[in-house]
């Protein structure tokens, strides 16, 4: 059981539980959310599983190792190019299960519905969930429905919970990154965040970019078959690649060095980030994963990813280095390096 890594007290200020209130930044995936999780939830629920700070918990079932994960979906708008809140809710939890190297078995879904929400929209969302679950081969086997008064929610919020089975000998966790390891990404970055952003009422720009929402368990199965010793897998959703790598750097007490020229990205995504003043490294993805493995296994893993439709644009984007600061850095195209810090505040709320 690895010790949790804590940030030096002077660096982040303790949350003021007496006077403070929940702000949007507490859900951004950035430093404020990490703080809330650590200082409230982990402190209160404290146990060996939660302390690992992964997106899922692995535990011993009666006969086999099991994995469990849960996630809530509050995205606005509910329908977007490439998907909707329903497909997102299925894919997101399947992916959280898969990021442990597990095979997802079952899903549970609970719905919070706002009074007045159109049943036609609800049907469209549920049909989309059914289709996504069927395509992924992961049935939705239980659920719950609650309705709240008009104004107490925004249309529909969905929570999905998943369980899966994990083969013996697979040990994939955020604390396993080691100096010298290679960092891989499964495809083009930033599509989901930009596709959703383009639809927001105050951002009227047109783009053909679609959300990348997809279930990644099949890709992961191929990867694990090729390289059973993968050290870390994580899906860079809220807060993007930058946030995920900072989390892993903290968990494993290592540094990271990225190569800007190796980051796979559409010119459209890059351009949208440029004029919105956003950094593509912080943009959400819903069908991509980050993998970290030993240097000797990297080419093998990359080949396995390239053979799968969801990994055809995979690339090695950096390496794990020794760094007592646990900084994520990037060698820029310009020459020289810069720190890629945690997301502070929020780039855009309710993206997933």
């Amino acid at each position, binding site marked *: 059981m690895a010790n949790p890594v804590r940030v030096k007290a002077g660096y982040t200020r303790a949350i003021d539980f007496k006077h403070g209130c929940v702000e949007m930044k507490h859900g951004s995936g950035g430093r404020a959310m990490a703080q809330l999780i650590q200082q409230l939830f982990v402190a209160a629920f404290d146990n060996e599983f939660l302390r690992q700070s992964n997106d899922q918990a692995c535990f011993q079932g009666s006969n086999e190792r099991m994995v469990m994960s849960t996630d809530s979906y509050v995205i606005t708008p509910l329908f977007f190019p490439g998907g909707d809140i329903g497909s997102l809710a299925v894919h997101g939890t399947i992916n959280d299960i898969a990021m442990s190297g597990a095979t997802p078995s079952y899903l549970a879904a609970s719905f919070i519905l706002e009074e007045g929400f159109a049943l036609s929209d609800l049907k469209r969302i549920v049909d989309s969930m059914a289709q996504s679950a069927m395509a992924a081969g992961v049935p939705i086997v239980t659920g719950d429905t609650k309705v709240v008064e008009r104004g107490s929610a925004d249309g529909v919020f969905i929570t999905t919970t998943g369980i899966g089975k994990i083969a013996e000998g697979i040990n994939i966790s955020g604390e396993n990154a080691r100096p010298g390891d290679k960092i891989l990404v499964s495809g083009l970055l930033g599509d989901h965040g930009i596709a959703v952003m383009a639809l927001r009422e*105050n951002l009227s720009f047109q783009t053909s970019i679609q959300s990348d929402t997809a279930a990644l368990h099949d890709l992961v199965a191929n990867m694990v078959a090729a390289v059973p010793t993968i050290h870390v897998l994580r899906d860079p959703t809220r807060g993007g690649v930058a946030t995920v790598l900072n989390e892993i750097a903290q968990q494993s*007490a290592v540094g990271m060095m990225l190569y800007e020229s190796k980051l796979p990205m559409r010119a459209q995504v890059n351009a949208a980030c440029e004029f919105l003043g956003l950094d593509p490294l912080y943009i959400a993805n819903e069908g991509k994963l980050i993998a970290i493995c030993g240097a000797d296994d990297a080419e093998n893993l990359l080949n396995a990813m390239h053979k799968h439709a969801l990994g055809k644009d995979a690339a090695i984007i950096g390496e794990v280095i020794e760094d007592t*600061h646990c900084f994520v850095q990037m060698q820029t195209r310009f020459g020289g390096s810069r720190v890629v810090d945690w997301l502070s505040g929020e780039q855009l709320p309710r993206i997933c």
Partner: protein
Amino acid sequence: MKYIDEFREGGMARKIAARIAAEVDARRRYHFMEFCGGHTHAISRYGLVDMLPDNVQMIHGPGCPVCVLPVGRVENAIQLAQTPELILCTYGDMLRIPTANGMSLLRAKAQGADVRMVYSSEDAIKIAQQNPQQQVVFFAIGFETTTPPTAIAIKKAQALGLHNFSVFCNHVLTPSAISHILQSPEVREFGVVSLDGFIGPAHVSVVIGSQPYQYFAEEFQKPVVIAGFEPLDVLQAILMLIRQINAGRAKVENEFTRAVLPQGNIKAQLLVAEVFELRRSFEWRGLGLVPYSALKIKSCYAEYDAEQRFPVPALSIADNKACECGAILRGIKQPQDCKIFGTVCTPENPIGSCMVSSEGACAAYYSYGRFRNRDLCTVQNN
């Protein structure tokens, strides 16, 4: 990305850096102020200081609109936002500026105020159209770049007959701030801040042109080179400044020729002149009261002036005592000179405004890790 990548090309940057190294006079020092936060950001993001000889020093100027807005005006905005049935719209960075008691527009929003982030003044107009029963105030800030869009919003509100839209105007003027710095005791008398030349604003100059800077070049004998916000623009401008100084010249030169004309954007200037007039004086964070340095809405557009429509008291609120934003904005101190930089004051929990906007010197230093020698965020295993 076309027209962007060309100006971020590392090979060319090293060539310009080599020219700079070859042309500097080793017997003297060069102190250049980049006025704009956009330049400060580029210098930090691309590590340009590391490419310069030791005797070329960059001083970060006050050209970050978020940073120079005094706390009193932010407090005014928070009070407006807390007015019942009022929607306050503003640009993203304004939401996080802390006031003396730790409030911010974001905190006010979390407590129930209706605060909306917009990307343009046009969005605020749309919100006013969609919410006819509520008052919509656009909290307008910025230099000459963002002033014409605010003028357009006011004219559009008038054309649409919108009676629930007004502007809390905080637009400020670049040339007055530069004059103020050049006339400050630190520069003129005490020599605390040596200033040999300016990198002139990029986007501001697209609007006002290069002519307004002639005065500085002539009156104060300081060269000005207008530069774009990309790293090659900044390096080229530094080379042009060094050449002027070595030759004993003090002229206004334009590196940003792809966007800046000598006369600027006349249409935008006329629009601004139609809607706004000079304030006698305006408080700048760090600089204090600067005469004729800001704009207010003309009386013929008073209906759209939030300061006329709502009570907006003049508040003078002192900065946090430990915060060095004032000295940093005047170029007297660097971010690392501040005791609370990176410890108490971080982008997550900013104490001073320079830590809020990505154009602020502190945030730019912090975000790109240019402070890392100070070993601030050692991670410890329990």
